[in-house]
Structure formats: structure tokens, C-alpha cells
């Protein structure tokens, strides 16, 4: 996946947007003593599940970029009847106020990536969202089962991680049994020759 070009052309736009919103006074109401802040988030418009999605946020105040601030990235999620936003990544802003992180999208559909700055003693909190579409149908999670030797310690449902070799499948046990039982069979065969010779007395053997 191509890294979104947040740094060069879009960086300017992001800065512009953040600056404009500050100027327009559209910042959320800040608590007493906190400087208002603005955040902008950039994410790719589309992504495939299972790949790393880079996201970037720029945090500014009226005085310029805010460095060393922690920014969280959240996506909305709904699971087993519970709706919420789950944190998927976080980053620390640099001197340009840029926080960069990657996350792996696993849920398909339209995704609103939300960048959240929670605020601190100096700065007021702020949030921003960016839309992206996640597609794909690949099974991603690979059960971590270590190494299995098929025929020795493979479970009723074999999974990946199974070392398969003709020597390891079940039949060597069967072959061993066949070998032993055919040996028995040979002994029984010789035994049957005893009764076959029942007519001959010991004298005839001479």
C-alpha cells in the first residue's frame, strides 16, 4: 500500500484546514486555562483487510503545531450487541505536530477513522474523522498451533502448521500390525502342517 502523501501536498492542506478552523473560531469549547486545539486526520480512501493502513494526524493550536502530544486513532465497531469505538493505534506528535501510526483493518465496510487528542493541562481536546472503505474476504487469522506431526499428534480437525509426510500418517502403525499378524499367520500355517501330517506315524518319518 502506498503511504498517503500526508507529508507533502496534503500536509499543506491539513495545516490550512486546521489553521482556518482555528481562525473561524470553530474550535470546541475549551476548559478554563486550556488553549483550543485543532486536529486533522488523513487515511487512505480504501484499504484491503489484513494490510497495514497508515494514518496520520496533525495537531495544531493557535500558536502552531503541538509536539509531544499523544493522539489516538479509533474506529467504530459493533460486536455481540455492543457498539463502541475501538482504539486501533496511537502516536506521538513530532515537531510539525504530526502523529503517524499504522493499524491493520480487519472489519470490512465503510470505516470512519477518528483521530482523538484527549487534551492535557495546556491544550483542550479535539477530534477529527476521515472516511475509508475496507474490502477483502481473505481469511486472516492463522491458528497458532505450533508444529504438529500428522498421524502422531494431529487433532480430529487438522489445521495449518501440520508437518505431513507419508511416514507420519497413520498407516505405519497398521503396517506394523500387518507385519506382526502375518508373522503369527506364518506360525499358524506351520501349525496347520502338523494336522496335515497326522496320518503319518513317527516310523514313516524315517
Amino acid at each position, binding site marked *: 500500500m502506498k503511504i498517503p502523501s500526508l507529508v507533502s501536498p496534503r500536509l499543506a492542506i491539513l495545516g490550512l484546514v486546521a489553521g482556518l478552523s482555528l481562525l473561524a473560531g470553530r474550535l470546541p469549547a475549551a476548559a478554563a486555562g486550556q488553549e483550543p486545539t485543532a486536529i486533522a486526520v488523513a487515511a487512505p480512501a480504501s484499504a484491503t483487510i489484513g494490510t497495514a493502513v497508515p494514518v496520520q494526524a496533525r495537531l495544531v493550536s493557535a500558536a502552531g503545531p503541538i509536539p509531544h502530544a499523544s493522539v489516538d486513532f479509533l474506529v467504530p465497531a459493533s*460486536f*455481540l*450487541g455492543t457498539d463502541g469505538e*475501538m482504539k486501533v493505534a496511537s502516536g506521538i506528535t513530532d515537531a510539525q505536530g504530526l502523529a503517524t501510526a499504522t*493499524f491493520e483493518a480487519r472489519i470490512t465496510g465503510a470505516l470512519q477513522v477518528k483521530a482523538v487528542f484527549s487534551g492535557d493541562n495546556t491544550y483542550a481536546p479535539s477530534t477529527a474523522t476521515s472516511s475509508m472503505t475496507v474490502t477483502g474476504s481473505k*481469511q486472516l487469522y492463522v491458528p497458532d*498451533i505450533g508444529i504438529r506431526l500428522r498421524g502422531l499428534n494431529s487433532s480430529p*480437525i487438522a*489445521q495449518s502448521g*501440520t508437518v505431513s509426510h507419508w511416514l507420519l500418517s497413520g498407516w505405519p502403525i497398521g503396517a506394523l500390525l500387518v507385519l506382526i499378524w502375518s508373522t503369527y499367520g506364518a506360525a499358524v500355517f506351520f501349525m496347520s502342517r502338523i494336522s496335515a501330517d497326522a496320518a503319518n506315524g513317527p516310523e514313516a518319518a524315517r
Partner: protein
Amino acid sequence: MNSAELDPDDSNTGPPGTVPALARGVQRRRILRMAGSALFAVPPLAFGARAWLSRAPASPLEAMARMSSAQAANGRLRRWSMVIDLRSCDGCQRVGKPPQCTAACIEGHFAPQPMEWIQVYEQELPGNGTRFVPATCQQCQNPPCTNVCPVGATFSTPEGPVLIDQERCIGCRICMAACPYDRRFFNWATPPQPVEALGMKYEVEHQAPAIRGTVMKCDFCPDMARAGTLPYCAQGCPNNAIYYGDLEEDVATNGKAVIQISRFLSQNSAFRLNEEYGTEPRVYYIPGAGEAVGRDSSKRGRLATVWPWKKVASGSRTWSR
């Protein structure tokens, strides 16, 4: 035995609905193969074996295939998992009750006395404190129990849970010897169960009514998750310490918040019980001693679990573990 056809990764190439047919095919071949060995092993028995094959009862694989396996929106198979946040587990000291996860599990599953399918152990910590560790079946991905079962009555499902078919189990208890987590329970007698449990139709994923002489354990409630609700234990926890999730979509919830499992595990230094066994459990723990709900680690003890049923089936007996 060759069960490569069941490899869940193969479901990438075909529709997930193909599992049942494959499972049946493998099953039949396996029966024939075992019958072949029986021909050598037990000559007198084997004469009738082929005639009997058609009478063989339904296999757990077939039973499993009958269940609708759970899929994410785009057809991906769910991989159920659990995260237990020990920071929020105080053994229900705060609410002054026996562990509520166990209580909810017992009520939901009619788990017979003395089975605590989720059991809250009190573990000594360095220093002089303790922590509470609620332990379900660890749902190992390399389960020692399924491997030793002589009849394949306990098995892993592609979704992850390890289940037991009590209608096939012969009660040899080698799985109990093999389980390193003490998470399997045997019906030493006809266990006490409420009358409504006896009327239920037996399902592998909801082990009621209990069958004497067979092994039971936590089944991870995949049927409930499929229906869109949390398992009983997670619902019952007053501190929301139990997260139930799907590793495929990397999402879990405790009924209050939604988390991304992978990140949550790493950020909180999650661990699994006895990692050195190589059993690869699907149940993760976040280290802690109940501090998130105000427990002091030196406060010991929890109340004993009670089985609430007033009226139980006649002829039942209980025992101690």
C-alpha cells in the same frame, strides 16, 4: 489419518459451506480405515464390522457440520477467543457474592454440581498477596485432550472451541489426564440438574442434559456468540473483566467497550496460562490483581460457589472434585 481436506485454510478457496460434506467424507474414510485395522486386531469382531458401519451413530464432526458455523459479514470464519482482565477481577469481593461468572455459567448451562466450568482460582503472588484467576477451558489450539481421545469424541472446531460429544464419549478419562489445566469434569454419577435441563435436546454446544459416565467442560458458548450475545460468564461478570471476541475480525467486547484484541493484548502485556506447554490457548489474561475495581491484593478469599436449584432430578448424586 489424513484430514487435510478439513484444513480451515482451504476455506479460502471454496465457500465455507463445504465443510460438512468434506467432514462426512473424511469420516467415512476414517471409519473404513479403522475397520481395516480392526480386521487385523479383532478378527472375530471384524466379521460383522462392515455390516455395522451403516449403523454407526452420528459423528461429532457431522454434528458440528450441522451447526451453522459463524461467519463474519464477508464470509470469513470466526475465530472465537477470550481475554480476561485480571485487573478487574476481585473474585466478586466487592459485590459480596460468589464469583458471578461461575454463577451465570451454572444457571445458563445447568452445569452440574460440583462442576465450575469457569472456576475462579486464587493464586499466590510474590510478596504476600493473591490474585484471582477465572479459568475457563483454555480452548487450546494445540489441545492435548483431543489428541489422546481414542474415539474422537472431543475435537477442535474450525472456529476454535474444543467440544465434547457426550453421545460418543466412552468415559475413559484419558483426556482428563492429558488436560494440564484441570478443566475437564467427569459425571461420576447422574449429576443433580434441574428438571428443565432434563427436557432439553442434547447439543454438543450446550451439554444438557448431562450424561452419566461422560466428560464435560466449558464449551466456550459459540452458539451464543453466533446468536449475537456474550457468553454467560461475560454477561455475569459485574466488573466487565471478561472480553469475548473474534480473532478474525480482531475485535472483542466485554459488554461495555469494544476493543481491538491484538492491540489490547500487546498494550497490556497479556499472558496465557502455562505458555511453556505449547498448548496455545485461546484464552488470554491481562495481569493484575483486581486493582481496577479497588481490591487490595492482600485481601484474600472468595465465597464458595453454590448451585441454586431447589428441585433436581431424582436419583442424582453429587460428589466433590
